């Protein structure tokens, strides 16, 4: 029975681990977004062959690398596995918060970033996970004017629209970036708000700790068995447990002194032990190196 429970526990642990690993990977895949699409590339971004074609920008919203290899891109809702992004190519690894551009030119002989479809008669794009069934992201786009791209107004956001500037392999937001600190100071130029908020948070964290530790002792000292016995006994227990640190220090000191004295006393005791050495050729004087020659 015990063996069975142990095996059950081990299997459970293994399953949990596998689930955690699996969910970790799937989370990474799900962090990809179709970020920007340019259908009518008239005088815009050129590929390595100097050709202009429609392009699709994928953005990795995660703070870790994501390998897009093995996933699928399609412009046909009925055919999710239309283009398999090849695995094992370093180009398919998208670094954290970075971009990868595919060319929808229907010319797969030009490399793995060239898709087997174009967007001339499409208004749909989707990215599917490696199983070809789980959709990671999809977008529908309207007809575009030449060199005006459609995409997310901010990288990875849910707001779509025509972008003022095409930004392949770059952030879709082209305005001035204001840092959180600069924004905070605009609202709180003297730091007073920060002082009040931050001190409140520090106090809150430590007050929580204070409250918990003020009361935890009571909680864990509750003996459920004794709860149902006489009240007097409980009182006795509480009284015995409330020993101050000074009392403990005094007890420790007394023990320490006692043991020290005991040690001193021990040192004056002489013990005579008979030493018996059993014969071994390793310790024999006959074979010793220091044995003088005769």
């Amino acid at each position: 029975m015990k063996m069975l429970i142990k095996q059950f526990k081990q299997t459970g642990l293994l399953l949990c681990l596998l689930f955690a690993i699996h969910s970790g990977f799937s989370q990474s895949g799900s962090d990809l977004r179709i970020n920007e699409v340019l259908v009518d590339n008239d005088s815009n971004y050129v590929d390595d062959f100097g050709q202009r074609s429609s392009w699709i920008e994928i953005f990795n919203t995660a703070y870790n690398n994501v390998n897009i290899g093995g996933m699928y891109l399609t412009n046909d809702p009925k055919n999710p596995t239309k283009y398999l992004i090849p695995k094992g190519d370093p180009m398919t690894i998208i670094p954290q918060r970075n971009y990868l551009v595919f060319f929808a030119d229907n010319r797969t002989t030009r490399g793995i970033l060239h898709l087997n479809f174009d967007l001339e008669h499409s208004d749909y794009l989707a990215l599917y996970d490696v199983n070809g069934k789980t959709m990671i992201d999809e977008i529908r786009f309207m007809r575009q004017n030449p060199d005006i791209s459609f995409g997310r107004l901010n990288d990875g956001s849910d707001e779509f629209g025509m972008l003022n500037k095409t930004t392949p392999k770059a952030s879709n937001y082209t305005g001035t970036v204001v840092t959180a600190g600069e924004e905070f100071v605009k609202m709180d130029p003297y730091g007073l708000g920060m002082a009040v908020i931050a001190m409140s948070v520090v106090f809150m964290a430590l007050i929580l700790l204070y409250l918990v530790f003020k009361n935890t002792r009571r909680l864990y000292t509750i003996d459920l068995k004794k709860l149902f016995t006489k009240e007097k006994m409980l009182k006795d227990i509480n009284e015995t447990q409330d020993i101050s640190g000074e009392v403990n220090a005094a007890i420790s000191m007394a023990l320490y002194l006692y043991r020290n004295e005991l040690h001193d006393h021990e040192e004056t005791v002489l013990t005579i032990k008979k030493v018996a050495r059993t014969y071994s050729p390793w310790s024999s004087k006959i074979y010793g190196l220091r044995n003088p020659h005769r």
Partner: protein
Amino acid sequence: MEYSGSYLTFIADHLNQFFSYTSFANFTVGHFIMICIGLAFIYLAIAKEYEPLLLVPIGFGILVGNIAFTPGFQIGIYESGSVLNYLYFGVMQGIYPPLIFLGIGAMTDFSALISNPKLMLVGAAAQLGIFGAYAIALFLGFSPSEAGSIGIIGGADGPTAIFLASKLAPDLLGAIAISAYSYMALVPVIQPPVMRLLTTSKERLIRMKPPRAVSKTEKVMFPIIGLLLTAFIVPSGLPLLGMLFFGNLLKESTVTKRLADTAKGPLIDIVTILIGLTVGASTQATTFLTAKSVGIFVLGAASFIIATFGGVMFVKILNLFLKEGNKMNPLIGNAGVSAVPDSARVSQIVGLQYDKTNHLLMHAMGPNVAGVIGSAVAAGILLGFLA
């Protein structure tokens, strides 16, 4: 290519070239000043025993960083690929501070805090120095990120200051770290006048109730609950808080003695050597000696004074609401800055000056370790707001 001059000219040219590579040829007044500062640090550490474990590596690091050289030979700490640059990576990426916190956690006994949880609030109040210095730095024209990094000096916690500065204002890291460690070493000089100024002689004589004995269960529960409560509120402080409480659990669980011994022994020693030496070396005169650095030093002193003020005044205010017999001695308020254990030692020394039998050390250790938690939380808040 064949050399056209005479042999003597050839030798003279090469000697001249050799001289141009020596430190004498590249030496500036700035280097001289920094070397003097480094020597002063070493003197304070060895002769006065002010934080020697920190000031000796930092002081020597300052000497290492201020040997002038010709750039391009991968020597300097800021040159990519140099040995010092590799070692400095741990500072720049904020790797060393959490490792130091692991060791601090494994060294720290939170018993004083657990036996009297009220002391946690003193540790929180002393964080006023951080935000006071932040406000002054903003007023003086520092950017918000810089002001936040400067403010954290008031937490009196070197690793926290380095961690935050490496994230918010890497350019000021050297000045902030040097300032934080200098003032931590000078705690026995800075704090007592402020403590005396804010307390009456009657208050200095207050005797506090002896702390109760703390059970093992409480000690084991503290790091777990502590982590969950603080990190849930400020997840950005997780690297510091997580390592601090993890180190403490290693110690208190008593079943991981080997790990605890490594964390509080060889590991923290190695990291202290690396962080001290590289932070010292990062004070290369050419990048360090600026008006901003001077400003940081002034603000650092101010932040320590404000922090001491916050801690002492908070105890005085708290005493208004406490019954006679439960009152706290305001002299432990200064220990809320997390310079462990120096500020607690200051409480003890100042307390003994007024009553030779009133030992405040064990009481002061409570706010002292609460200050470590408080400053890590404060760093998390600043990171959350300003990064």
